[in-house]
């Protein structure tokens, strides 16, 4: 791997190694010592380790017996391995069992919150992608007066910090009687997110107009062109956008905390916050917390494992353009 990515491998790596071990015999400006490269890989390894370790630590803690964690806090392996924490979080353990392993005995209703998270994230994503695609088509493929002005307005909306709009939006939801309803959690995100429009517009602009014109000659209207030509041609970017928006909606905390704190509509992020503050005095139920945190992150991690290439490659694209 090292040899293929080096832009100017004048000598092979083995040759470089041997020259470096006999100092003074080579012209150093032509052959870089491999130590630089080794240091670089070590640094890279350190970055990876720091990135991955907390994930491992979540797992290690979640598989430990909560009551025994303090006896061996430095152990790299689970302390008294048990599935107890997961059973506790998923409601499979009795209160007595839970308390024996350091749980608070309070139930988390994980499945209910999971369902809420899935519902909310799915509805938000569907709305954002569909309405975003409609708007992006109007911006990219149609000519109409005021197009640039409206686009500029949306661009500004992208810059406004969420906290600024969320206080008045909370009041609006209260006036509409939508506090602690799914509608209240979903609505502000549902119709429009500037990011979705920009993301798709950028792609629609790149679609060749020839196909579109051929369809128009055949008498196809814009609606037909949009549904039969543009959307099928854009499944890749649409999927990428959907994944990104789903992750974002899944992770949202502030807004659902404001309007959806009631347990009937509570999503997982909010539930985790509540679960964390439910620990009375003494030590929190770390094993249970980590199990819950891991389970809450699991759907996203699975999505990511399946679609990592799409997600990773979309980042520069969406962030810079």
């Amino acid at each position, binding site marked *: 791997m090292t040899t293929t*990515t080096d*832009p100017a491998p004048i000598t092979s790596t083995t040759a470089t190694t041997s020259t470096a071990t006999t100092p003074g015999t080579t012209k150093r*400006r032509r052959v*870089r010592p491999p130590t630089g*490269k080794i240091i670089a*890989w070590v640094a*890279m390894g350190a*970055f*990876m380790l720091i*990135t991955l370790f*907390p994930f491992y630590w979540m797992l290690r803690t979640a598989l430990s017996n909560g009551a025994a964690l303090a006896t061996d806090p*430095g152990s790299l392996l689970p302390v008294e391995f048990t599935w107890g924490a997961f059973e506790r979080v998923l409601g499979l353990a009795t209160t007595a069992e839970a308390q024996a392993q350091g749980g608070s005995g309070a139930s988390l209703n994980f499945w209910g919150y999971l369902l809420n998270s899935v519902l909310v994230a799915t509805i938000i994503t569907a709305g954002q992608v569909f*309405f975003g695609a*409609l*708007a992006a088509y109007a*911006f990219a*493929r*149609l*000519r*109409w*007066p005021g197009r*640039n002005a*409206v686009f*500029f307005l949306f661009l500004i*909306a992208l*810059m406004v910090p*969420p*906290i*600024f709009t969320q*206080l*008045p939006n909370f*009041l*609006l939801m209260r006036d509409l009687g939508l506090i602690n309803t799914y509608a209240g959690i979903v*609505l*502000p995100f549902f119709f*429009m997110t500037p990011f979705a429009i920009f993301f798709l517009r950028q792609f629609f602009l790149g679609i060749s107009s020839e196909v*579109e014109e051929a369809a128009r000659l055949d008498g196809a209207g*814009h609606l037909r062109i*949009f549904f039969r030509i543009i959307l099928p041609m854009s499944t890749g970017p649409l999927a990428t956008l959907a994944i990104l928006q789903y*992750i974002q909606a*899944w992770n949202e*905390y502030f807004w659902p905390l404001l309007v959806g704190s009631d347990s009937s509509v509570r999503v997982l*992020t909010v539930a*985790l*916050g509540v679960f964390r503050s439910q620990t009375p005095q003494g030590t929190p139920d770390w094993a249970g*917390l*980590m199990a819950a*945190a891991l389970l*809450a*992150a699991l759907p*996203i*991690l699975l999505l*990511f494992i399946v679609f*990592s*290439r799409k997600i*990773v490659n979309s*980042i*520069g694209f969406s*962030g*810079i353009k």
Partner: protein
Amino acid sequence: MSTLTLTPTTTDAPARPDSKRNHRRAVRRQTWVAIAFIAPSLLGFAVFYFWPTVRGIYLSFTDYDVFTAPVWVGLDNYARLFTDETFHNSARATLLYVAINIALQTVLALALAVLMHRLTQSTFIRSVVVMPYLVANVVVALVWFWMLDFQIGIVNEGIQALGGHAIAFFGDETWAIPTIALVNTWRHLGYTALLIFAGLQMIPKDVYEAARTDGASEWQMFWRVTVPLLRPVLALVFVITMIGSFQVFDTVAVTTSGGPGDATRVVQYYIFDLAFQRLDFGYASAISVVLLAVLGVIAAVQLRLTRAGESDLN
């Protein structure tokens, strides 16, 4: 910015002499189609972006406890900002957080991006690196809250194993803000690095080859080639991270709730506190107007200072 350029006029009617009226009719029909297509987004914009902006600015001039009608108080809320010690403290805490977060994140992300760029194109490595960013703030906050626990957190175990004293990361007034900054740096580092990485890939390879032929070292190439050519990307990344970090909330809410004392009562948490615990919506709105103004000015100044629009490649 490339986002503002227009589409070439692909949808024009063919240029026949008698087509002028047809053309105008086509444009008018397109306008109606466009209005229909954009209606849902426009509705969302009007109701959830524009209207709250107007309402937020209006409320900032009122005294409003949510239960009775807002009372116009003119500039009172803004005057109060000057004497409110808690606000000053929260502004200081936020600035400290932003400073630490930006400095760490930019330097580390640049280092990581250059490492990835020079060492490997592996999607696997890039995936691993961006993973923390995909996990909810709440989850990240909980994990680090546990790992940095004073008594049995693994980090303090490590520090003690090396002969140091345990640190109350979230419980000590001097440590709390740097700790939260570190935690969020961990979450955002990979994402920021990927943004910079995308910028690095836009630099043509032959620039590096030319530099190498001239005998430049890796270090020289970094400072003479990479950094100048990367300036627009860095500026943009800087603005994005800066605007993001001024709005730190989730981590604070889950870990310290503003404590110890007021050490981590950052601006957004203070706004939340005022509005929802003390029902002082008018004053809370005034602070969010100030936050909005500050962010706007920062974005404008930064983009100008760093000449983000132009790169040495042009």
